[in-house]
């Protein structure tokens, strides 16, 4: 379905959702991200690609301040979402994360029922007033996660009992349930088999309707299949950022070219 990079893809200029300027990240004394500027658009899938250890996941985790949970990590520069600086003192990272959801590399359902997995976010953020509201949110999120039909009869079975691909879609549904505006995905398919991967990729394309999606991926084919914009990271630098079609067919930087043709990796 998405086997070839689609150069004629819809590339209209859209509203900018996240604006990052001069971002530097340090782990202790290691300089992990060096002066990165990037604009991420709304209702677009943006892919971060690059060799292992290039800083793409680190940068992704800056966007919802997940790096705060690591003691030795320090972030400099400015990241704005809808014009609000997320590293401002007034910003509560907890609220930020409700607005910028995240899906992880390995499916990580909580050891609770499927229903409780989805309801967890809405509950802590107070999104449902009644049980009926909550039921509705759960159903809607599971539908958006494209997993409703598979689990609707066993909502109270443990989430850990699902298959890997189902678990990951459950995690996406769980992230969607808090009504975020941005969805961050850190290699969401790396632990899945090809069929499950195809299902998740299809889902990502649908999510683009409503969200700004940022996906970190190891697989260039995947980036080409699902994203409209692509950013190539190398050794902590953002080497090149632009339309996915252009990056894959006509990269400006020689390093990008080497990477996508398989010479560095």
């Amino acid at each position, binding site marked *: 379905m998405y086997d070839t990079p689609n150069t004629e893809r819809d590339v209209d200029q859209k509203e900018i959702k996240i604006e990052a300027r001069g971002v530097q990240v340090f782990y202790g004394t290691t300089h992990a991200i060096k002066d990165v500027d990037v604009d991420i658009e709304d209702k677009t899938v943006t892919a971060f690609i690059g060799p292992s250890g290039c800083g793409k996941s680190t940068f992704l985790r800056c966007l919802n301040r997940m790096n705060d949970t690591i003691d030795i990590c320090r972030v400099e520069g400015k990241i704005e979402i809808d014009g609000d600086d*997320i590293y401002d003192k007034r910003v*509560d990272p*907890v609220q930020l994360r409700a607005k910028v959801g995240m899906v992880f590399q390995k499916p990580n359902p909580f050891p609770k029922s499927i229903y409780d997995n989805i309801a967890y976010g809405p509950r802590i953020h107070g999104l449902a007033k009644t049980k009926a509201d909550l039921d509705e949110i759960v159903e809607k999120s599971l539908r958006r996660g494209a997993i409703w039909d598979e689990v609707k009869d066993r909502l109270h079975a443990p989430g850990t009992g699902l298959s890997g691909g189902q678990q990951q879609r459950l995690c996406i549904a769980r992230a969607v349930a808090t009504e975020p505006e941005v969805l961050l995905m850190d290699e969401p398919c790396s632990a899945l088999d090809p069929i499950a991967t195809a299902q998740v990729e299809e889902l990502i394309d649908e999510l683009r309707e409503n969200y700004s999606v940022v996906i970190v991926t190891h697989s260039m084919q995947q980036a080409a299949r699902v994203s409209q914009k692509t950013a190539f990271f190398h050794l902590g630098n953002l080497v090149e950022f632009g339309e996915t079609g252009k990056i894959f067919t006509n990269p400006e930087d020689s390093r990008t070219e080497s990477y996508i043709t398989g010479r560095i990796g």
Partner: protein
Amino acid sequence: MTDASMDNAAEGARRTISLYADDDLTRKRNAAEKRFQAYGIAAIAAGLFFLIVLLVSIVGSGVGAFQQTFITVPVYLDEAKLDKNGNRDVEDIKKVSTFGYNPLIEQAVFDKVTENGIATPLAKRGDMKALLSASAAAQVRDTVIANPDLIGQTVEFRILASSRVDGYLKGRVKREDVERDKNIDAEHLDLVDAFVASGVIQKQFNVDFILGADASESRPEQAGIGVAMLGSFFMMIVVLLLSLPIGVAASIYLEEFAPQNRWTDMIEVNISNLAAVPSIVFGILGLAVFIQFAHLPQSAPLVGGLVLTLMTLPTIIISTRASLKAVPPSIRDAALGVGASKMQAVFHHVLPLAMPGILTGTIIGLAQALGETAPLLLIGMVGYIATNYPGGIAEGFLSPNSAMPAQIYEWAKRADPAYYERAWGGIIILLVFLLTMNIIAIILRRRFERRW
């Protein structure tokens, strides 16, 4: 796949979150967060608070035991009383019991009253008795028997004051208490005050508390923990000599040679269960097997050591196995690769590399055994038994003795509050030993720890 109409409906209802303005819910959640964190801090603080209270009460109540009140007086060793025949024959001198010495000592103290011009209603020599420890006469008598030539001379003695006087100087005995006390009166305390002013009565460091023997219930001022310390020492020797080789042998077998079978499984289950059996049950075992069945002597450090060995073996086996497991398989492969037998690989390569870990575990096991009390009570290491120094190594293992924690328990049981101070003091000594052992273990671990 997705329900499009539902999505669009949701679109309109999407909540817009401003990152800067806190809403009520966020404030509530953040308050809950603060509260939760405060519980955690409170828990840590409570733990540390208990530790501090514990240490303060140990040190505060126990440090007094290292000081004792002494009366320094010149005693005239009257020949007419102590050696009527005048031939300095030790056998004759021995016939004079402590009762013969008491008047001389009391007289010496009484002379000090006159000498210092202290005004006191206590006009008789015999009134001085309340100031003196009952052990004073024995102390003087022992000196005289050891050196009969002193008879006829005036010799300066440092004599233990009675526990009431000691308690008065340490603030344990209050003036309002002595009204009901038949051992001492307020006049005596006035006299003590005067003596303290003139330097006759002084608190001094008391080495006999650390090195001495236990004393009878009525003489707390004389009691020391030294003999019980020896008892603990002999027990630890037994524990070390038995538990280290047996523990290492058992661990080597289980870790390196044991096939996966039911016998091995049974041993493993047994070890992990024995590690959690209450120590008193080991005391029952010791009583039934070593004393009832094998007729080993009661209260002997040898038996205590055997019981503690059985108790610490599981601990030592568990830590030894962990150290053996930490040696990477590549070492074994390397040895086997040059043609060593499995036994040689283990004894020449694995065991030496695991040794620091094994020693650390053993020291910690020994420290645990050193502080254990309950099983010792059941094999008879309780009561007034730590009274004589063992005469030799064999006697050290076999003759009845106490152990430090059992001695502390014995003191804590006695009625005289003067013994409580001794019990706390004993705890200080016990903790110093435990601390030293743990520090040695930590140093060993730091110095020799290897990361593979």
